[in-house]
């Protein structure tokens, strides 16, 4: 089965080592561009379930215990970019498959 990919934006819309927000079928998605990582781009929900606001795209990207994570700008909990798992709480937020192809950024349906 082929994954249906949606074109979101251009690479130049991303910020190196940080996140931006995108709207995908009515859902807010935080897209992170991490050139040092294998995947290069990650997509998780923009909604911080602890701070209860759409802010995760504006958090700091960190590399902890061999995983790429973002620290929420509100209360600093970490969310794993590849899985949406919160490191401090028993919470997992939605995440999407994402890819960089040429200068185009795509994401796929919910994982």
């Amino acid at each position: 089965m082929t994954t249906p990919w949606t074109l979101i934006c251009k690479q130049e819309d991303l910020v190196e080592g940080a996140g931006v927000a995108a709207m995908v079928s009515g859902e807010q998605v935080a897209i992170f561009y991490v050139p040092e990582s294998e995947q290069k781009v990650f997509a998780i929900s923009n909604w911080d379930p602890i701070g209860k606001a759409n802010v995760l795209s504006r958090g700091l990207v960190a590399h902890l215990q061999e995983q790429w994570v973002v620290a929420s700008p509100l209360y600093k909990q970490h969310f794993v970019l590849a899985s949406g798992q919160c490191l401090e709480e028993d919470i997992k937020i939605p995440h999407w498959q994402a890819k960089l192809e040429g200068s185009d950024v795509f994401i796929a349906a919910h994982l």
Partner: protein
Amino acid sequence: MTSTVSFLTTKPHIIVIGNGMVGHHFVEQMIAQGGHDAFHISVFGEEPYLAYDRVHLSEYFTGKGAADLAMTDGSLYDTHGVRYFTGCLVIKIDRGAKQVMLQNGESLAYDKLVLATGSYPFVPPIPGHKRDNTFVYRTLDDLDAIRTCAKQVTRGTVVGGGLLGLEAANALKNLGLETSVVEFAPRLMPVQLDEKGGAVLKEMIEGLGVKVYTDTATKDIVDGESAFHRMNFADGSHLETDLILFSAGIRPQDALAHQSGLTVGERGGISVNNHCQTSDDDIYAIGECALWNNRIFGLVAPGYAMAKSAAGHLLTDFLGLAGVTFTGADMSTKLKLLGCDVGSVGDAHAQSQGCKVFVYQDEISQSYRKMVVSEDGKKLLGAVLVGDNSYYDTLLQYYLNAIDLPEQAQALILPAMEGAPVGLGVDALPATASICSCHNVSKQDISDAVCNGALSVGDVKGVTKAATGCGGCAALLKKVVDNALLALGVEVSTDLCEHFAYTRQDLYNLVKIGEIKTFNELLKTHGKGHGCEICKPAVGSILASVWNDYVLKKEHISLQDTNDRFLANMQKDGTYSIVPRIPGGEITPDRLIVLGQVAKEYGLYTKVTGGQRIDLFGATLSQLPEIWEKLIAAGFETGQAYGKSLRTVKSCVGSTWCRYGVNDSMKMAIELENRYKGLRSPHKIKFAVSGCTRECAEAQSKDIGVIATEGGWNLYVCGNGGMKPRHGDLFAKDLDDETLVKYIDRVLMFYTKTADRLQRTSVWMDGLEGGLDYLKEVVIDDKLGLCAELEARMQHVVDTFQCEWKTTLQDPEALKTFRQFVNYEGSDSNVVFVEERNQMRPATESEKQQLIAKVG
């Protein structure tokens, strides 16, 4: 739910009835020991929610939502194959057929059954107790109903002055009701407190505006004249109130045990043995519904202990070893009720044979403490504390571990005097000492966790769960962890984080000496890995302190915390506040009008800050550049309220206007603010300048304080308001303008060079070896030969100042990052404002739900 609820495999089936804190803990215990592999587990909860933290139920009224209080979102259950059913009442147990029957008529077979049905609130059968506007305080639904009613009325009364009653009274008070408490017993908290303690607590609570009636029996409740109810008391008096909340104790929820013929106690409660088995070996009962040794335990910690022993017993065969048995539990407790500390340890009522008592009472600061000791004075048997719980931890440890009391044991409840023995050091605690009673974690468990690699309080919490129940032992836990680390010979690490094995001071020097200009360069030469949210902003700040580059340069942007990245202060809903610089708090009417116009145009909430400037709240990300364009056009500069940098120089009006002023504090304040406004420092810095010794600008509570004298300026350093106030130290007297600036340059640069990350000047000074005298030697006597360099560094910062917003507006690449979405022009629909006092503020969760409901 479907009607075919059988499993295909042959694993035995455990049904847990009740999904409160204890029922949930049981499931956690099973999962922790692999029990989900040995059994199918199904959980039934009567309430529509999964288990939530009933201990902190009152926080539902102070901003927490149901999700905050939830013990799990269900993922723990899902991941381990535990089936759960909320809003699902079990109405019958058929022990012969080993089946339970649900309200919807379905039946389900079990092999083992665990009753964790908890308790229900006891409502005294006073005539009128079922009238409208009467409530109990147990579930989230109860609280919703109370909140709805409280919105429409003014007076509320709690029947019951025990622990839960006072908790409920606090909630009513927080809901804005005129609150009364009616207690049948002669004192408040009759179970935990003695007469005198109860009296002190009553006085304190009445001091907070809650009316307390003790020794008062309610005869009946009828229609009121000035309020909804009238409560007629046995002595002929009465009380008018709109809302009545019954909190007169709990009763075990043992209906299923009665129905199925299990042995129950005379006054209720399902009888259990040390494994928490009921009279039917296949049925267990745990928590507040269980009666052990003729006692009900109405606290969460014993409930958890029961859950653990039941789980251990069920898994004995699976694990090949016997679990712990339940042999009673300590009912000592400490609480903050209506802001008053109350603690009760062991035999609070001094009922032990031959016991002796020490009492300390202070009617001025309203505190009362009692120690009950054994006849020979060697052991602590119990204690009562009202007004100050700082004595609790030490007393509890003496009690729980039966440690011999020191000579002069009374010192344990006396106020700390100079030379008096301080509390029991953690060294003195035996390995068996229970540190966290909620999760039954001993000192030994913590040492073991540390030995096995949990090298921080956070890690230890994760491994042992200590301090994750009521949280009362958090401070003690930290001491035990530190102690264990010390014992291991682990030097408590001063590394910045896992990426840099250096302190901030080391990194500062490396950056400066190695002329390092970017994070990646520093990471490559002196660090490892890819960086994190600790080291990135810290290094970003160091780079800015040393080189003073534009912070949104491509190579720096990902280092910035969100506030620095968007040059504004993020608020709880993800919008930002904007604070233009207003040096010294001096502003022309024209500029003030501009601020007003901009705020009005964008509907921003407007407030004067403590630092004499104006904060505009509620701007969205994409509005920030537009707003700043307007502010800059009117001559404003960024106020750097978002940065770890100079905030404001607060000032009084000084000698130009004030009849007492001895020098022009206004002019000095503006000069200082303009000089240091670009400095990036380890933490924020606040200044103030007062024009005379009356000190209207409160300069002694600032990082840098300047006070005019007849002979010039007095300089104070390292003061702080905020969380831990510290008076500034007088650093030098009667300075002329030039020397004042020179000293401030040197002090600030020396701080910027040597402080830890996020360390305010006050803490830096407290930790500075040699203290104030040393700082004077460095800054005034140039002991380290650094002064010229410190001044030159500061001059560089001053000379390279740029308004970051001005630079940003000219940089199309930087401006692009202020888009709300990269692919969509709309706004964040979760940002919702409501109006209050003629301005906008973020809608609360419940307001949002209502607004959405209306729209939907």
